[in-house]
């Protein structure tokens, strides 16, 4: 059987090799690799499409190995596994708060903070933080609610996606 994967890799040397290694080691056949470093996501990561072939057990082992390496699998056979959630927090976010907020968000099930952008203001109350999270597909609504709770808890204005 075949799996069509869409992976999301950081744009640093050696990433593709990292992905291909478990496939070779576990004995999956690579049918196609589409890797264009010029085409990037908004966050500067590189989407890579890989088609692999093998029996079910082998392919499952490959998937486990990729996950163990923390490689972002965005879609399998056209079915989204992960989705991005963007949130902006407004409020006095000093260094400690950023760390704690990220930790709180990472503790939510199926959520990982993938990107963070900070814009400080003369008035610290007006500072804003943008967070991009990768989340398991299909849990958006629940996750948005949890983000809001975390924000309320810390006194931030939470601006979630629609």
């Amino acid at each position, binding site marked *: 059987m075949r799996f069509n994967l869409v992976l999301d890799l950081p744009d640093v040397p050696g990433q593709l090799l990292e992905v291909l290694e478990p496939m070779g080691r576990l004995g999956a056949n690579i049918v196609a690799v589409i890797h264009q470093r010029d085409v990037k996501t*908004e966050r500067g990561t590189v989407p890579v499409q890989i088609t692999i072939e093998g029996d079910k057990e082998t392919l499952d082992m490959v998937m486990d190995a990729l996950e163990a390496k923390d490689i972002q699998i965005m879609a399998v056979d056209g079915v989204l596994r992960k989705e991005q959630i*963007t*949130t*902006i927090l*407004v409020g006095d976010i000093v260094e400690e708060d950023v760390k704690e907020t990220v930790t709180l968000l990472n503790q939510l099930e199926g959520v990982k903070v993938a990107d963070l*952008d900070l*814009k*400080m*203001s003369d008035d610290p109350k*007006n*500072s*804003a*933080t*943008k967070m*991009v999270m990768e989340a398991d597909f299909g849990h958006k609504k629940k996750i948005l609610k949890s983000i809001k709770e975390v924000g309320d808890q810390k006194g931030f*204005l939470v*601006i*979630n*996606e*629609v």
Partner: protein
Amino acid sequence: MIMNSRKVQILEINGDPMKIIILGFGAVGQGVARVLSVKKDYLKKKYGLNPSIVAVGDRSGAAINPDGLDEELLLKTKEKTGKISSFPEYGIPGVESINILDEVEYDCLVEVTPTDIHDGEPARSHMIKAMEDGKDVVTSNKGPLALSFQELATTAQSNSVEFKFEASVGGAMPIINFAHETLAGCSIESIFGILNGTTNYILSRMANEGSSYEQTLSEAQELGIAETDPYQDVEGIDAACKIVILANSVLNLPATLKDVEVEGISRITTESIALAKKEGMLIKLIGEASPDTLEVSPRLVRQGSPLAVEGTLNLATLKTDLADEVTVVGKGAGSVETASAILSDIISVWKVRK
């Protein structure tokens, strides 16, 4: 014989007038008088509708004439003196607005008095009385609808009268009748929308100019887009009222204002808008109504998506079971624009009654 058939013909063309009382003669009330005047021939030709304003009430009193008041003279009187009670010959100073409903025979009340979001009065009492007297009611008045929707709807039903309020949400933007009639057959699962023009204007300007909230608000006030007391708009109360009306009328959820979670735009900063833009997004004040959420809050919207409308425009996206998502856009305020929605309700009432 010839004489007789001519008479019948003339009667058919003119029809029985639909006698209308307008309570409240501010921007919307005057808009109604204006469109009824401008569209006179059109209404007669197209619908056989011959509307006749038999009374108008404002703070100063009333103008009442069972044979109909001239629309242009009503507008001129209001413009010149600020008081409808100074209407030549038929002006009555000091009459209580609710008593006007007993002074003259009428078919339909157009309730457009200033809205009150604490007790919905005096509009609520006006409408209840008209319904109990067996009269149809058309309104743009959000306050009483957001506070006592179920009471009003039940009273209308038990008295078998028409109760229409298209103009209460989104001004000229068709939404309530659109959901009920045009999308008939579809179940509507949820509604998302930009339901307040003032806040959309402020957020659009902040995004385009990079200006601060305070600065943009005072600019909007100078332009007359924001009110001197902008509280209800910027804190999301106005949008919340509309969410309640949509929840009740479109989603059949018996909600009131206190069920809505509300966050306005006064805490939105230039920094947060800049960060959103960097990600290809805009911040908009979004109202959401669904069986598990009633909320008004600033949200992130992708640039170029249907929700990314600019200026004072209003917008709503209805999520349906059969038609998927349907989006409507239109002018959310303005005298004649809002009156257009009231006129469409008057025509609907007429179609039922004629």
